């Protein structure tokens, strides 16, 4: 029952917002209350999964593999919690961060629908359902992106929607192929049936379109340019929501299918993932260096950081490919734990940096570095929050990003993948350079002259930023605990026995008919 709530709460609330059409203020308050509920549900779910193992639900009472299966393991449950936290921050920021016209045209309903779709993708135990949630995500994000209909918005949205539709098409084709070859789309059932295929290369061939589709969604090299082309165009609060969550759904799906379903030829997939990871990191960070707008710089850094997550996944696959089948090797667990740690840290910090960019824009009316400056004197508090988040992102020691990167680098050294470790360290340095560029140009120097009217209700902007910064601080201080958690999440992800047993009880016995 608990597994259905992360989808149900935001979707029902979204419908209620539609039913309250025309009452924008009520909708916004309602959205905040809903996201508070979501955080509560997510904490309860995570707690239950931690204590009792994966939680499942079969919608309508139709048992797996025939019905729609929902399942939350540790990885899924923590993603649901992060979704709820980002949702809460965005809902509060929206109160002051959206124009009245935008709020009147369904901003709150769309945000809630998108949160529901994202949570749905995280707890879905069925390939076709993941596709449905992806589509709902794409639809609501597309409308959020184009509401207002300014020229720049439409231009970004066209690139966004074209590439994402391409990804959906490839995804759907892949789903069709998988169904034709195996007769099932239930992930757990699929994991068993693919292992029974006569030739493991067939499974890898089936994996190819799905991996490409997820990689596009994750904004991995080479098809990442939809992201920097579109993320700076909508209002900052919308880009914060996108930046925090959308690409991570792609990364999550990649982790899910490569560890659970397509584990027949891990060595091959590991190489592909590692090469993609390195190129994604490099192209993202190099793209950021040539940019001159706060949100554009941050957008390119999302791409670069997706590379780190893929690096963790790649090393994990590489390490299990070398070890024999069965229990995952320690290095593999360490690497995937690094990826999980990185995702947890990244979602919080990245959302916060985009919200800070939104606060800068609200105070100064622009995000262009050439027209900013001196904010450390006019807005010292905001400057401090930015510095903290930016340094966390770059991975300065004892801040949250540092721990994530330490784990990844250590796993990479243990696995002997020295090239990717070298690339990741270089990219880290360049990230610091980019963050310092924003710092020196926006916060230091002479205050630029502005004629922006003083924006009202500063607490709706500063509240979420302070909240997310405290979560970042908590991740840094509680790093050992977060790491222990990530290790356990990685262990359960890499050893799918518990997952399959939860969905299809009794099917995992040796000699059982797959």
């Amino acid at each position, binding site marked *: *029952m608990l597994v*259905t709530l992360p989808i*149900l709460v935001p*979707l*029902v609330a*979204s*419908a*209620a*917002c*539609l*039913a*309250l*059409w*025309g009452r924008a203020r009520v909708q916004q308050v309602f959205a905040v209350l809903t996201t508070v509920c979501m955080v509560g549900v997510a904490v309860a779910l995570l707690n239950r999964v931690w204590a009792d193992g994966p939680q499942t*639900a*079969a*919608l*309508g*009472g139709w048992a797996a593999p025939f019905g729609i299966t929902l399942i939350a393991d540790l990885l899924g449950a923590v993603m649901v919690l992060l979704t709820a936290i980002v949702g809460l921050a965005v809902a509060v920021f929206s109160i002051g961060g959206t124009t009245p016209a935008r709020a009147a045209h*369904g901003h709150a*309903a769309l945000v809630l629908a998108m949160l529901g779709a994202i949570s749905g993708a995280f707890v879905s135990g069925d390939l076709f359902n993941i596709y449905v949630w992806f589509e709902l995500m794409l639809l609501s994000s597309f409308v959020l992106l184009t509401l207002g209909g300014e020229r720049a918005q439409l231009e970004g949205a066209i690139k966004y929607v074209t590439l994402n539709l391409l990804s959906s098409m490839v995804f759907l084709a892949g789903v069709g192929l998988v169904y034709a070859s195996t007769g099932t789309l239930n992930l757990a059932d699929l994991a068993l049936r693919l292992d029974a295929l006569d030739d493991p290369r067939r499974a890898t061939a089936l994996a190819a379109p799905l991996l490409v589709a997820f990689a596009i969604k994750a904004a991995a090299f080479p098809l990442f340019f939809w992201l920097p082309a579109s993320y700076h165009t909508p209002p900052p609060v919308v880009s914060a929501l996108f930046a925090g969550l959308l690409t991570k759904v792609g990364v999550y799906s990649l982790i899910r299918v490569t560890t659970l379903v397509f584990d027949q030829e891990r060595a091959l997939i590991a190489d592909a993932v590692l090469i993609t990871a390195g190129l994604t990191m490099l192209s993202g960070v190099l793209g950021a260096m040539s940019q001159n707008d706060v949100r554009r710089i941050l957008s390119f850094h999302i791409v670069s950081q997706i590379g780190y997550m893929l690096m963790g996944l790649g090393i994990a696959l590489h390490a299990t490919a070398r070890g024999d089948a069965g229990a995952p090797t320690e290095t593999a667990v360490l690497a995937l734990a690094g990826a999980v740690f990185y995702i947890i840290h990244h979602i919080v910090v990245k959302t916060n940096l985009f919200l800070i960019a939104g606060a800068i824009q609200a105070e100064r009316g622009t995000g262009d570095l050439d027209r900013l400056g001196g904010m450390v004197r006019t807005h010292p508090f905001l400057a401090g929050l930015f510095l903290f988040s930016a340094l966390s992102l770059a991975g300065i020691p004892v801040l949250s990003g540092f721990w994530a990167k330490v784990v990844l680098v250590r796993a990479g050294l243990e696995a002997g993948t020295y090239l990717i470790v070298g690339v990741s360290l270089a990219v880290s340095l360049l990230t610091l350079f980019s963050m310092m560029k924003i710092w020196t140009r926006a916060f230091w120097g002479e205050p630029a002259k502005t004629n922006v009217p003083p924006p009202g209700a500063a607490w709706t902007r500063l509240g979420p930023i302070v909240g997310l910064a405290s979560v970042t601080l908590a991740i840094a201080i509680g790093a050992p605990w977060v790491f222990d958690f990530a290790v356990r999440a990685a262990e359960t992800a890499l050893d799918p026995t518990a997952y399959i047993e939860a969905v299809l009880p009794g099917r995992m016995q040796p000699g059982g008919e797959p």
Partner: protein
Amino acid sequence: MNSVIFRSSTHVLLPFMLTLSVVVLLRGHNEPGGGFVGGLLAASAFALHAMAFGHRSARERLRVDPRVLIGVGLLIASASGLPALVMGQEYLEGLWLSMTPPGFTEPLKIGTPLAFDIGVYLLVLGAAFLMIVSLEEYRHDADAVG
């Protein structure tokens, strides 16, 4: 459209089509029909009205904002799964009440899937109506500008 025949027949057809849409909705669970088809039928009835009398008149005829219909429909459909959840069953599992009113020989069954279908009916009606009317309004705006 400026045709007396069309307008008069619309007056006759509208209540007929709306009644038919409800019949299709109700027979849906075990026979062809259901909320989706019923909603489309109802929306086409209003589309007919919009063609005969203009989209403003159709909006007045519908009385509620189509977006509210979408929201309420979604709410009813998603709420129809909740009783099962409260009873300790899975979300959306069908619950049925069976009773034999006086004068009936067969028991009358009523259940949560019907509520789901009603929700879908309203949702489809609202969405299809909104699409038709928006296209119509867009054309009129373009005409006004051009």
